[in-house]
């Protein structure tokens, strides 16, 4: 079945430590890939995206993600976490490549809640 999987429901890291959040997808063709961040009770902010080309993409707030076709993965990384990074992180895909006109609905993973210890 087509899906987006975030294996880690909760992750706790110490401030200053590195971070990797995992995301795997299961689609016949490589979808468009996104990472969003959501603070409690807030909207979703786009961190970064991958459509094609360079498999290492840079985003806002010091985040980066690497697309690995062989593993159907799009993992999010940050070398040094700040306390303000504590939030919920969603991996999302647009399954239909090349379509426009409102057919690009996002399919989200279940999310990973990140806690940061001082």
């Amino acid at each position, binding site marked *: 079945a087509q899906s987006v999987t975030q294996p880690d429901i909760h992750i706790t890291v110490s401030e200053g430590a590195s971070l990797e959040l995992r995301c795997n997808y299961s689609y016949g063709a490589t979808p468009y890939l996104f990472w969003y961040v959501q603070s409690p009770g807030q909207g979703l902010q786009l961190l970064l995206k991958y459509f094609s080309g360079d498999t290492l993409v840079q985003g806002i707030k010091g985040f980066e993600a690497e697309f690995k076709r062989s593993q159907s993965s799009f993992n999010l990384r940050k070398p040094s976490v700040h306390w303000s990074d504590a939030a919920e992180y969603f991996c999302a895909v647009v399954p239909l490549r090349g379509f426009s006109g409102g057919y690009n609905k996002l*399919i989200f993973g279940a999310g990973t809640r990140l806690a940061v210890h001082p």
Partner: protein
Amino acid sequence: AAGVIQSPRHLIKEKRETATLKCYPIPRHDTVYWYQQGPGQDPQFLISFYEKMQSDKGSIPDRFSAQQFSDYHSELNMSSLELGDSALYFCASSLNYEQYFGPGTRLTVT
């Protein structure tokens, strides 16, 4: 930069009442998406509009309807509200494949 505006931010309704949620997309964005996020859940796609026409439909109950107006703002109308409709409702606007989300409307049905 202009962002997506949603109103109201909070709404409390009783069962069987109706609710109307409004979304004002980023200027020049031609597509609007609506999502529902239940407590502790990921957002689920409800419906989308492209150039004021409904384009795609997800798991939207028949009790819900939506439209996009000539000024591109969109409204989600919800009737016969049920307790299970309590959720965060997001609107997102898009010009290409990137979607920009509004702050959401938190609907509480009592």
